[in-house]
């Protein structure tokens, strides 16, 4: 459809960009290879995965670099084209708006780029940015410029389109239509390539230590590879069907990795729960994508669907229904309220997996999907023009619901899991209020600091062989200072302390909530987000306090302690693993012989932590706004993230032109009040938690004394009773009474009918045989014999041999016949 060359117009994407599809293929090959020969390699099996993901990471970095050049070139070309436009307008006085209409009328199916080829007579505005050198050069037809003052966008850049780099082959055929599979590389995909490969690489390295000696070491790395392949393929999906496919594949890897230690039932239960919950959402995904498929005139192509949504060629009803269906999928995959319940349970998997899948990459698939199909959501939910919509409501609920639950967890990973739920809520909420870039930026920063937190918790657990903060941790600061400091940095980023990464991204979301939207704007979500920030600060302080401060409450080494929650398992493996005493293990793991106090982890665990902590500090600088109080910030370093990764083209809501819903996509500006207040709220949260936990201030024990507080606490401990509803009532009901009733129906009614017919046939047969066959039919046969005999006896009497008698009969008969003859004739 859109060949790479055509899509690029005159701007040539680099070699790496055009061939980025090899990245997931390499990881898929790594999966196969690890499975095939991993067993033979033993503990070196991880090298296959590490080398592959390392290669992919380098590739992704290269792709990002080339993408930078590509964006630059596109902008450049746009500017030069604007120059062209100026010249042509000099010759031709026709109203350019008509040109545009004509172009659209000519080919309504024009793909993204052409749709964006708007030529607006703003040559004055274009003037300063025109590069005279290339003005006379190529005037690419697909890359056009709208030079405008940048009031809508607020950043003063020219409006230009960045053609996604696409490549595809035929996947399947139906009728005369051929459906394709391929890659679609635009800003967000490029960004995700970087994030996924980086986190995955770090997790690979971390895992070589963490799961060393595990009995399914190769399987573990094989699935890490497959997961990376699926996720990388997912972010580059060219069409919705491919999106569905890889979405599910990601889910399967999650299933396999959550259930990694499947010998214990809670683990396999958690795996099943994750998969089934995701399947529930997938119903929405399937239905939503099908609706879009038909609404867009039988195409799966993402760009085409989004473009048609933006031009208003798809009815609003279809978009609304489709986006609500897709929302269900987002809720399940990205752990949004009320389908979030699987995510905390998924902590049953090994910790690096939790970091990779359940914090940094897979769970953001839902967020990414919304971002990917933003044209649909934007127009379907009227994001730009309303002050409340389903996406934002779900996100807002999740922010608060998840944060609330994080307070009552005693398992460190569950705190982080609920924190993930809550942060995903931020992203979805941001998408819901129209702050697309903020959402993706938060996704970007969150990936680093949350992975850092998870790996940090893994590092701690590796030392104490438990995840229970209340029982087995405390005072860890003295044993593992390096882990502690990385953990603190990542926490600061999560809370949103200036200048850590989370500050910038969360602030942008809050600014979006206050500035975007219709007349009333999404103020309610600003409040939700602020309260969320407070809660985040408080529960993370609690978490740090319980883990790193106070007295070490750890059980004596080697004694396995179970969490109070339903997470009794992973520590067993940790304990068992370190006891394996294989050479590698012993080399770096001094405690193998020395069963003393916990100790700092080895380099393969710490280095990833350092890197992630470093990113947690600097990642936020990728998108520093230069508006509001920060307008002094040099433009070249401002909003780099937005500049690079935000799509520009007809498949994305336009910055200048109102779409069918009448709203214009906009960027929030930096607002010093919000920034300050959210920081203050964060500090307040820290302060409150500090007072409560460190100093023991406040009404402790209120849950016992006050009924209302007690009820609240109980609701939180029981996770709002959602698990009871899902597992107990719905799942239990379906596989219990309902299934049994069906089976009973099958056995007794349907089969009863069949058997009844069978038995009836047998009884009938017997009746037929005994009564009819034996008596009637056979009777008839026999009867005819008897009748013949009897008749014979009768006629025998007549046979007198007397001729005269015969003659008399003959005569009588003749007379009768003659009589009949006469009468009849």
């Amino acid at each position, binding site marked *: 459809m859109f060949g790479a060359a055509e899509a690029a117009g005159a701007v040539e994407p680099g070699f790496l960009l055009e061939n980025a599809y090899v990245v997931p293929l390499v990881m898929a090959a790594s999966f196969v290879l690890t499975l095939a020969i991993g067993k033979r390699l033993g503990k070196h099996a991880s090298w296959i995965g590490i080398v592959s993901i390392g290669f992919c990471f380098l590739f992704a970095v290269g792709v990002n670099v080339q993408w930078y050049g590509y964006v630059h070139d596109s902008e450049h070309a746009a500017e030069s084209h604007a120059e062209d436009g100026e010249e042509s307008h000099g010759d031709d006085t026709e109203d350019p708006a008509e040109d545009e209409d004509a172009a659209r009328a000519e080919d309504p199916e024009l793909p993204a780029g052409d749709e964006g080829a708007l030529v607006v007579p703003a040559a004055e505005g274009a003037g300063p940015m025109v590069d005279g050198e290339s003005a006379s050069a190529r005037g690419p037809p697909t890359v056009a410029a709208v030079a405008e003052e940048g009031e809508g966008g607020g950043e003063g850049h020219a409006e230009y389109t960045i053609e996604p780099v696409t490549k595809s082959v035929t996947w399947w055929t139906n009728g005369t239509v051929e459906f394709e599979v391929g890659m679609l590389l635009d800003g967000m995909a490029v960004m995700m390539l970087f994030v996924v490969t980086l986190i995955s690489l770090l997790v690979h390295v971390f895992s070589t230590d963490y799961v060393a000696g595990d009995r399914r070491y190769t399987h573990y790395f094989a699935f890490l590879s497959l997961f990376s392949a699926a996720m990388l393929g997912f972010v580059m999906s060219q069409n919705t069907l491919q999106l*569905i496919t890889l979405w599910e594949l990601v889910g399967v890897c999650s299933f396999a990795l959550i259930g990694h230690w499947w010998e214990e039932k809670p683990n396999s239960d958690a795996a099943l729960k994750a998969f089934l919950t995701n399947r529930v959402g997938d119903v929405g995904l399937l239905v939503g994508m099908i609706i879009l498929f038909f609404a867009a005139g039988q195409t799966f192509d993402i760009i085409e669907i989004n473009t048609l949504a933006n031009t208003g060629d798809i009815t609003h009803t279809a978009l609304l229904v489709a986006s609500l269906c897709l929302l269900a999928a987002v809720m399940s995959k990205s752990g949004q309220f009320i389908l979030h319940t699987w995510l905390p349970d998924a902590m049953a998997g090994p910790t690096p997996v939790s970091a990779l899948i359940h914090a940094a990459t897979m769970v953001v698939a839902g967020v990414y999907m919304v971002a990917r199909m933003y044209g649909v959501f934007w127009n379907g939910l009227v994001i730009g023009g309303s002050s409340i919509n389903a996406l934002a409501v779900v996100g807002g609920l999740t922010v608060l619901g998840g944060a609330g639950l994080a307070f009552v967890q005693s398992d460190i990973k569950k705190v982080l899991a609920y924190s993930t739920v809550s942060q995903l809520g931020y992203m979805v909420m941001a998408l819901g209020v129209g702050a697309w870039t903020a959402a993706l930026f938060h996704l970007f920063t969150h990936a680093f600091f949350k992975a850092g937190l998870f790996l940090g918790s893994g590092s701690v657990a590796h030392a104490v062989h438990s995840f229970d903060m209340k029982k087995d941790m405390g005072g860890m600061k003295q044993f593992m200072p390096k882990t502690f400091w990385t953990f603190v940095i990542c926490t600061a980023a999560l809370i949103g302390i200036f200048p850590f990464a989370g500050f910038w991204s969360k602030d942008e979301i809050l600014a979006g909530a206050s500035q975007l939207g219709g007349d009333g704007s999404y103020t309610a979500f600003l409040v939700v987000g602020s309260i969320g920030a407070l809660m985040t600060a408080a529960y993370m302080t609690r978490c740090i306090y319980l883990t790193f401060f106070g007295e070490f409450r750890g059980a004596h080494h080697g004694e396995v302690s179970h969490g109070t929650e339903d997470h009794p398992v992973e520590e067993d493996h940790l304990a068992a693993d370190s006891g394996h005493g294989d050479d590698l293990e012993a080399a770096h793991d001094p405690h193998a012989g020395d069963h003393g106090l916990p100790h700092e982890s080895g380099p393969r665990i710490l280095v990833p932590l350092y890197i992630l902590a470093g990113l947690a500090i600097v990642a936020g600088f990728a998108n520093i706004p230069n508006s509001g109080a920060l307008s002094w910030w040099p433009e070249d370093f401002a909003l780099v993230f937005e500049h690079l990764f935000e799509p520009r083209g007809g498949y994305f809501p336009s910055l200048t032109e109102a779409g069918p819903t009448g709203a214009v996509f906009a960027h929030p500006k930096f607002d010093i009040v919000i920034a300050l207040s959210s920081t203050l709220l964060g500090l307040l949260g820290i302060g409150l938690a500090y007072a409560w936990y460190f100093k023991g201030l406040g009404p402790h024990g209120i849950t016992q004394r006050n009924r209302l507080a007690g009820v609240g606490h109980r609701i939180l401990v029981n996770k709002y009773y959602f698990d009871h509803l899902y597992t107990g009532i719905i799942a239990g009901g379906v596989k219990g009474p309902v299934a049994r009733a069906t089976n009973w129906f099958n056995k007794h009614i349907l089969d009863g009918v069949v058997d009844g017919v069978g038995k009836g046939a047998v009884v009938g047969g017997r009746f037929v045989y005994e009564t009819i066959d034996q008596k009637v039919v056979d009777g008839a046969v026999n009867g005819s014999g008897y009748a013949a005999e009897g008749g014979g006896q009768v006629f025998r009497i007549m046979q007198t041999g007397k001729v005269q008698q015969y003659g008399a009969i003959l005569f009588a008969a003749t007379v009768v016949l003659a009589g009949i003859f006469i009468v009849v004739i």
Partner: protein
Amino acid sequence: MDFIQDWGLTAMVFAPLAGVAIMMLFPKDADDTHKVLALLTSLVTAAIGIAVLADFDYDDTGSLQFLRDNEWINVINSRFILGIDGLSVPLIALTLLITPLVIAYSWNHFPEPHNPKAFLSLILVLHTGMLGTFVAQDLILFFVFFEVVLLPMYFMIGVWGGPERQYASIKFFLYTLFGSALMLLSFLALFFLTGGETFSMVELAERVQGMDIARTTQLIVFGGMFMGFAIKVPMFPFHTWLPDAHTQAPTQGSVILAAVLLKLGTYGFIRVALPILPEAAQSWAPWIGGLAVIGIIYGALGCLAQTDMKRLIAFSSVAHMGYTMLGISTLTDFGLNAAVFGMVAHGLITGMLFFIAGSVKERYHTLEIKRLGGLLVSAPRLGWILGFCTMASLGLPGLAGFWGEFPAILAAYQPAEGLPVELFRGYMVVAAIGTVLAAGYLLWLYQRTAFGTVKDEFVDDPNIHDVNGPEWIAWTPLLALILILGVYPNLLFKVSDGSIVNVASQIAAATGN
């Protein structure tokens, strides 16, 4: 015209019978001879088949190729017409693949009371019947082949089956025969309604269009065919023979039953019922679709209640064939293509699952789910394969099962012109919910059989070993195909598409309002 063009199909169909004839010459106790002979026969058949399929013109899948039209039964104007198009090719390929694999699997998995001669002969006779059904282009010939498969299967279940084989085999036989009888009536009705001159499917379809047959008559005639095919599929509520037959049948029988025999029904719908009586099909479609989605949910719920692994898999067939029938009931090219893909995918996947069930039974001597467990510990490869197949069976994208389900669901959103759109959209949602249930019962099965630890009674059982040679030989092609077709479905869609488009446009033309 060479031999393959003229006689390839005939040779392929009757080669297994020739093999049976040769096997008859050897005494009963020459086990190995029989095994070799049977395998050779199936391979020769496959070779002829491959020669035919290689010669097949894949750019013209819409028209009948390798046509063979001979006199046969002149009294009733029935002719010996063979021919294949894109609809037959996938199913023939499936049959040609499954039979040798089943025979290879039989090598050391003989069910009691042994007797390879009889057992393998029956499989070969079945082979002829199945191939014949897929190539016959004359209703009477079709019917004959359709019925030929009944008897060997009856004996396989009845002689080599489980403890309740008598009941199961008789139920299977009578139930299907009952449907066939109604189907035959419909065939005869068609024959007489169109002037009593031909049984050729193609000609009948043309004649029915040319004539003005009363609507009610058409509906009734279609109803007869529906009964015949629906019982074979089987559709809810005519499915109850299936769990019994599957559960009691020997592994080989279950595999063939699941992989090929069930497809005779759906194939019949697409090959016979829809093209010949498109208008009646349109009137019946909402009902068929309704039964199909009931079957999807019902089969899934039935699965959840099963305690026996094999019976569970059998029930899952009801649900899966529901998707196929839903695809057919939409009367669109999407739906019909999905149905063809679904047939092949279900054949591969459920065939595989039955193979696994058979192997589990051989090792554990039970299929009771609660006694199993820890398969991944005691036989890791077997456990992995089971996992792979459950994933495929629950319709995971990227594996074959998905391509039978998704386009069917897709098609239900926009069924053919003239069908009630809202109703079918309701069906779509129900069918989509069915995928959740499918994941539920399959993963629950997997959790209970493969995860966890080995139950005490089997901990040191020397009988429990991992996948062995014949099993690898029999399974590898199936597993590979599940993956290949899943990743690159066009291999199959491209083949079936031509003839499916023909059928769909025939229907559209006939019902074109």
